[in-house]
């Protein structure tokens, strides 16, 4: 078999494995969200459809495993078996393809997420280096921005074609919100790109290796905060869930959807949550690198070829572990914020996007570029971390900016409140 064919088979296998893993993770994320929200609101939460559903496993209930562990899976199966209510849509064709247009981009983002360091695999006597990311594009970050940009259409079309006022208003609100925050989202990444000098995610991770002090969050505290907030807005989650604000708009743009079509929107939301967390981890929180690097001798020991077939398994396992931990904590943050904050008003939301986040991102960009021009040298060919000088300089600049933003916002708040009284 030719090398190219084998590499393509490896691609296909990676896609199926990663897609399957994330698809399985979605019900667990739903469950996690329901359990955490229940705890925050001092409720019991899902505790019925557990392992005692399966004969012989009931003894595990209440010990280590949450009682309702199968709830989300059963809900998915229920949605699958439900009747699909077809409304008298404005346009049945568009109404049918809108969920597809929402879900496909959500899945596509998974293609660039790096899950761990590469492993070596011996196939028919040849060694193949397999990165634990589906692919690594030279334009990785631009690909991410492009795909999130296209995802708007599913929501616009769902709102437009449903022939329902709630859907229409939800869809148009949602798309206006998404495009407003997309500017801030793109500009929040400029600082990281300035430091890395590349769009490629492998390079962006490479410069964050060798310890927690090299993570980009120290160099770009403002960038990370802006990216996080814009991520909430882009995925339409509380406190930015005006498009689906239950008390005003029913379910927003997916009011008229039921059965599997509704499940598509639902899955897309959770997959987006996952990919935001994954991209945030990759760009700012060191990706799959652990906080403290192990000595090289340890890596040499755990990465030895096993049976002459695979190598690098040890660091791959460690990498995937740290990646999963970070993504898990970020998903918990998503849920925590949903359980804590109230919903924005629409004018507040637009104000935040255009009048606070956009200027903050621009200022951050200029400051970062100035600091880099003063302190840093041109990047090296291999992705290696910058020295502590750049980190300290950017951290100081970031703290100064945080204080300045706080001062300005406090003054603005006082002014607005003064007008009101």
């Amino acid at each position, binding site marked *: 078999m030719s090398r190219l064919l084998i590499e393509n088979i490896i691609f296909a296998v990676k896609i199926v494995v990663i897609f399957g893993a994330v698809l399985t993770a979605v019900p667990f994320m739903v469950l996690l969200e329901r359990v955490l929200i229940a705890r925050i609101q001092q409720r019991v939460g899902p505790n019925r459809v557990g392992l005692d559903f399966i004969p012989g496993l009931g003894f595990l209930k209440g010990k280590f495993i949450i009682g309702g562990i199968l709830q989300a899976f059963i809900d998915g199966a229920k949605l699958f078996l439900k009747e699909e209510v077809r409304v008298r849509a*404005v*346009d049945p064709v*568009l109404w049918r393809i809108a969920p597809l247009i929402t879900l496909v981009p959500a899945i596509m983002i998974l293609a660039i997420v790096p899950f761990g360091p590469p492993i070596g695999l011996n196939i028919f006597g040849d060694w193949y280096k397999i990165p634990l990311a589906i692919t690594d*594009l*030279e*334009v990785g970050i*631009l*690909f991410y*921005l*492009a795909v999130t*940009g*296209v995802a*708007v*259409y599913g929501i*616009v*079309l769902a709102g*437009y074609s449903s022939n329902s006022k709630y859907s*229409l208003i939800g869809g*148009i609100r949602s*798309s206006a919100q998404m*495009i407003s925050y*997309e500017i801030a989202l793109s500009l929040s990444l400029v600082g990281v790109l300035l430091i890395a*000098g*590349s*769009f490629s995610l492998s390079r962006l991770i490479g410069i964050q290796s060798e310890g927690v002090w090299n993570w980009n969050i120290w160099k770009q505290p403002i960038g990370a905060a802006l990216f996080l907030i814009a991520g909430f807005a882009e995925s339409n989650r509380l406190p930015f869930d005006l498009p689906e604000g239950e008390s005003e708009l029913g379910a927003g743009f997916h009011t008229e959807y039921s059965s599997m079509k509704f499940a598509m929107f639902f899955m897309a939301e959770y997959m987006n949550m996952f990919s935001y967390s994954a991209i945030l981890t990759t760009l700012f929180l060191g990706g799959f690198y652990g906080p403290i690097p192990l000595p090289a001798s340890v890596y040499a020991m755990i990465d030895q070829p096993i049976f002459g077939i695979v190598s690098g398994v040890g660091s791959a396992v460690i990498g995937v572990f740290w990646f999963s931990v970070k993504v898990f904590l970020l998903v918990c943050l998503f849920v925590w914020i949903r359980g804590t904050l109230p919903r924005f008003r629409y004018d507040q939301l637009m104000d935040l996007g255009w009048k606070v986040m956009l200027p903050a991102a621009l200022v951050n960009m200029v400051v970062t570029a100035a600091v880099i021009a003063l302190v840093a040298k041109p990047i090296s060919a291999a992705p290696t971390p910058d020295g502590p000088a750049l980190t300290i300089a950017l951290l100081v600049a970031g703290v100064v900016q945080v204080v300045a933003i706080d001062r300005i916002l406090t003054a603005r708040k006082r002014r607005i409140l003064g007008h009101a009284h």
Partner: protein
Amino acid sequence: MFLKILYHLFVFLALFGSLMVVVSKKAIYSALFLILTMLTIASLFVLMNAQLAAALQVIVYAGAIMVLFLFVIMLLNLGKQAPLSRRSRPVRWLGLLFGVGIGAQIIAVIYSGFIPPAETTAAASVTIDHVARLILTDYLYPFEMISVLLLVAVIGAVVLARRHLVQGVETVTETAEKAGK
């Protein structure tokens, strides 16, 4: 071989999409087929190793311009029916004549050798930072002029919409109706 198949697939989709943009009766379908055309053109850029151009094509055209188009279509409610005005017969023939003329021109340009064939343009392996640096050095003047152009566009947009922004809720169609009375 595989490359050829992909190339022909994308070319077919791009042509099909642009044809459907013209033929579709509903404005929203035209817009969606235009998005398809943009995406396939981006894929053709990728085939030519113009990765930056492909990404920017999707971000700017498919991601931003077409959102604006869809908003306008929704705003003006063009979706319901956009009856084509029945033009007189001579105008139709004139349109056909112009269409054929432009088509002949395009074909003539393609076969005149003015545009180099795809194989030669794809060969150069240009990295992204090289392109980016060219923008900052050789093409500095157009680059800065873009910002002026964008400034003009921002001011134009605000001026056009200003009356409505002050009044708040009036829409473009309502103003158009008033103007017609």
